[in-house]
């Protein structure tokens, strides 16, 4: 009995010891990617035709994100959602959100052309990149949930994802996005 307890305590200690550095590493990793992303956003200033090309791609991409969201929401609101439809739109969202990292280089703001992207994006880049990353992470989580069959979990991840859209839009999107 006592032996059992000691073993259990030891196992806990080992687990805890492993857990510690592991989480720290993950933390450092995400911090590192975030600062790399900020550096990228700032360093890759674009201009001319390239800027307009990216702005166009961004516009089309975000519109496509909205379309896929609509398709998903209509299914999730139904009494018996077609999960095949949800999955294919979730996969498209995952694809789009991964591409979004390249949608906001410096030099693609409203001073260059018509866009809903506010100048604040490049004034508070660290915060913006954090919010963009939060969305990308939420899309991945949603995509994983969509592959399963638990409709309530899918709905919950969809709601989380919507929250990350709104968090960014509230601060960084102007009313010019139509």
């Amino acid at each position, binding site marked *: 009995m006592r032996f059992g307890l000691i073993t259990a305590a030891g196992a806990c200690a080992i687990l805890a010891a492993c857990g510690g550095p592991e989480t720290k590493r993950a933390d450092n990793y995400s911090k590192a990617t975030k600062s790399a992303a900020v550096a990228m956003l700032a360093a890759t200033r674009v201009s001319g035709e390239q800027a307009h090309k990216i702005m166009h791609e961004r516009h089309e991409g975000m519109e496509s*994100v*909205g*379309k*896929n*969201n*609509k*398709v*998903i*929401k*209509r299914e999730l*609101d*139904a*009494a018996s959602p077609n999960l095949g439809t949800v999955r294919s739109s979730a996969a498209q969202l995952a694809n789009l959100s991964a591409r979004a990292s390249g949608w906001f280089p410096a030099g693609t703001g409203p001073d260059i052309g018509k866009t809903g992207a506010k100048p604040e994006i490049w004034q508070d880049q660290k915060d913006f990149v954090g919010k963009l990353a939060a969305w990308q992470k939420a899309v991945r989580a949603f995509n994983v949930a969509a592959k399963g069959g638990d409709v309530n979990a899918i709905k919950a991840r969809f709601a989380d994802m*919507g929250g990350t*859209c*709104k968090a960014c*839009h*509230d601060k960084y999107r102007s009313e010019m*996005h*139509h």
Partner: protein
Amino acid sequence: MKRPVWDLPTRLFHWSLVALIAFSWWSAENDELDMHVWSGMAVLTLLLFRLLWGFFGSSTARFTSFVRGPRMVVDYLRGAWKGIGHSPLGALSVLALLGASAIEVVTGLFSMDEDGLVSGPLARLISMDFSDEIAELHEEFFNVLLALVLLHVAAIIYYRLRGKRLVGAMITGRGEVEADVQPMRPGKWWAALICVAVAVAVTRWIIAGAPPFGT
């Protein structure tokens, strides 16, 4: 002489609608769409109640007492009208405001926001493209409602300048009425309760997606 003109349900309806239209506007402008949808559901309940109260309410709230033909409007403009409640011209304003509010609510029921995150409870019953068009109409038509509200307020200011106070009656329920005009016949309190209950029930049915059509 001050006499009852508007019953309590009609006054509560009026000021609740004022508050909710303002809130709906604010929440839409600030992208608080969850709250916007709930505000719309509340307006839906109010309008359903007002529709029922227009048949079962007190005399001045009933449509039969104020929906009149164009000849009465002409008579009124010539100064040859005497009565209690909505004047023939004011009645047109009431109908326009109720109608425009109803159009906003119904289009809202079928709308979905462009981000695909928030939608009216009936948006799923129609195609996505049609829903997009209705959402656009919902946004555009608010300007018409706003213009009607401004006209309504302007008319009240105009009457005030000519010595007729209208706002007080909508607050206290009592206003100046000529002595030889038939007084307001009040509605029954239990009729008001039934109208509220029916309005809430229909709203809940719509929120549920209007089964069996919504399933």
